[in-house]
């Protein structure tokens, strides 16, 4: 087990290094000249030369890469934003926690919904086929349209849920984790916690529906395959109910493929998060990204890619290890 974890972490570091190399390469080929973007069209030749020197752009590529890597590893600094002229790190620290909280909530909802979908359709619970149709249409619906539908139905018509932001409290705590649901509990403010949950529901469900269907489908097909196996028949012969057979005997065997699918879906979910944030005016990384895109602010995009890429790689490493926990036969 220890060997497996060590090996996985080694692979993870290699992938992260690859990501940094890719981003550095993209920065080199990007046609936008950072000096030009920063100083504007009328800058004098000396000012341009000076700025190039300050940014280290007059040094050889290998030395630039070493510098980039050094800043990244020892200062967690992916560079300076051309637009805000602040370190991308500062911007990320401001916007990223809200995004990660939303993504985590979406992932939890996707897992729960996916499992319910798989169990209900496998056991052929009454009404499960209608449930399935709804979810498949939901999976063909872009997250932004789900968000719009959610706002219209639950905010404008029913008035049950809020339509924008993370909370309606102006005196929300700003630490220590910057995750509002966690912070409110740490400060013992239950009404704020409830408010944060209410703000999370609509955007989180909007991003969760697609991944939930993907996870549910994979889990369902593994469950059905294992229900026909000999050990399931033995369990049935002992008089166990189908639900108990699924939960106690089959789930652990069948969960591997669904876990891989979950890991993969996190990547697609990030795109959903960036989009849905704009529907709900969620103060996360989404707006930052679309402004950076408009202004060709590559360091900002690179920073976001790096953080989301790292989260994705870490989650998939955890998934790999969990798979080995669920099924000890897995080696390497």
């Amino acid at each position, binding site marked *: 087990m220890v060997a497996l974890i060590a090996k996985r972490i080694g692979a993870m570091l290699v*992938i992260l290094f*690859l990501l940094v190399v890719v*981003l550095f390469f993209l920065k080199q080929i990007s046609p936008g000249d950072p000096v030009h973007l920063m100083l504007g069209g009328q800058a004098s030749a000396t000012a341009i030369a000076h700025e190039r020197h300050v940014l280290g752009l007059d040094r050889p590529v290998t030395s630039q890469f070493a510098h980039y890597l050094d800043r990244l590893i020892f200062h967690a600094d992916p560079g300076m934003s051309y637009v805000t002229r602040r370190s991308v790190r500062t911007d990320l620290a401001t916007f990223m926690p809200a995004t990660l909280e939303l993504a985590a909530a979406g992932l939890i909802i996707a897992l729960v919904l996916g499992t319910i979908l798989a169990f209900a359709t496998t056991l052929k619970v009454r009404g499960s086929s209608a449930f399935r149709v709804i979810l498949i249409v939901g999976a*063909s*619906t872009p997250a932004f349209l789900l968000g719009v539908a959610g706002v219209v139905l639950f905010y404008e018509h029913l008035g049950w849920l809020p339509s924008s932001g993370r909370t309606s409290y102006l005196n929300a705590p700003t630490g220590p984790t910057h995750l509002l649901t966690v912070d409110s509990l740490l400060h013992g403010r239950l009404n704020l916690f409830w408010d944060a949950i209410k703000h999370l529901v609509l955007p989180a469900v909007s991003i969760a529906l697609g991944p939930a269907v993907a996870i549910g489908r994979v889990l369902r097909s593994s469950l059905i395959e294992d229900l026909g196996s000999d050990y399931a028949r033995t369990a049935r012969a002992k008089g166990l109910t189908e639900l108990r057979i699924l939960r106690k005997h089959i789930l652990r065997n069948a969960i591997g493929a669904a876990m891989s699918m979950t890991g993969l879906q996190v990547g697609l979910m990030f795109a959903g998060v960036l989009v849905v944030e704009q529907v709900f005016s969620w103060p996360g990384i989404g707006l930052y990204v679309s402004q*950076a*895109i408009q202004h*060709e602010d590559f360091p900002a995009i690179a920073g976001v890619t790096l953080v989301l890429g790292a989260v*994705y790689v870490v989650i998939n490493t955890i998934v790999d290890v969990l798979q080995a926990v669920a099924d000890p036969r897995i080696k390497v």
Partner: protein
Amino acid sequence: MAIAEPIERAPLVELPRRMRRPRLSRSRRFSWLAASLLLITTVVAVLAPVLAPHDPTTTSIYPFASPGQHGFLLGSDSTGRDLLSRTLYGMRTSWFAALVVIVVGVLIGTLIGLVSGAFGGWIDSVLMRITDGFLALPAPVLAIAVVAALGVGLVHTLIAVSIVWWPFYARIVRGEVRKLAARPHVEAAKLAGAGRLRVMLRHLLPGAIPATVVTASLDVGNLVLTLAALSFLGLGQAQPAPELGLDSALNITFLSQDVWVSAIPGLGVVLLALVGNIAGDGIRNLIDPE
């Protein structure tokens, strides 16, 4: 213990050919119907300029017209442009964009997977490490970074998404080719003196096609959704070109005024994604019935 051999009985009467051939089962007919949706949608996309009642970029003095008002079948947007025409043109762009990325992804993936699976050894290791490296990164986020480096525009978005989309196909093709390479027919072909290229193209590639086609057809819906999300973030065509994701994004500001201006382009995406998913299921059932 002796097991009785099943006895092959010759049919007593040779049935007329017409009666011997089983009719298409109901589910098979349904699958064909579903698969043909791909063709129908492509035809509609090609004919969009003919079908659209208005020019998608011409503004009028009737903003936020409700459906049917002033000759706008689905109403008009904030600058009085016809929503139906904009959505039809937008669907055309999205559909062809998704097909282009699938084709490019399949071609690159097949090439890499085939070479990797057929050669094996260090070539296989190197190619698959690269492929795994790409697969280990979140595709949409990486695509955003590539577009940011190349500059915003639909062509750059298609290049970026193709770059992050091929590794998936490389894995599938390589897996199929490895399985096939161990089969006797490949060994027989080699012994018969077939060159490496001939073995690859005649004896390995055809076997990898079914799995690739099934995966690709199931992927159309995913791709439509991913491209719509990127377009929503401003990575597609610039305004005033009709673009489903961006139209939806820009019209969200008017949500309290008129829901449909934002929802109708989104529903266009739903239609395309549903076609992709239903047709994909149909093609899978036809090629690989469980």
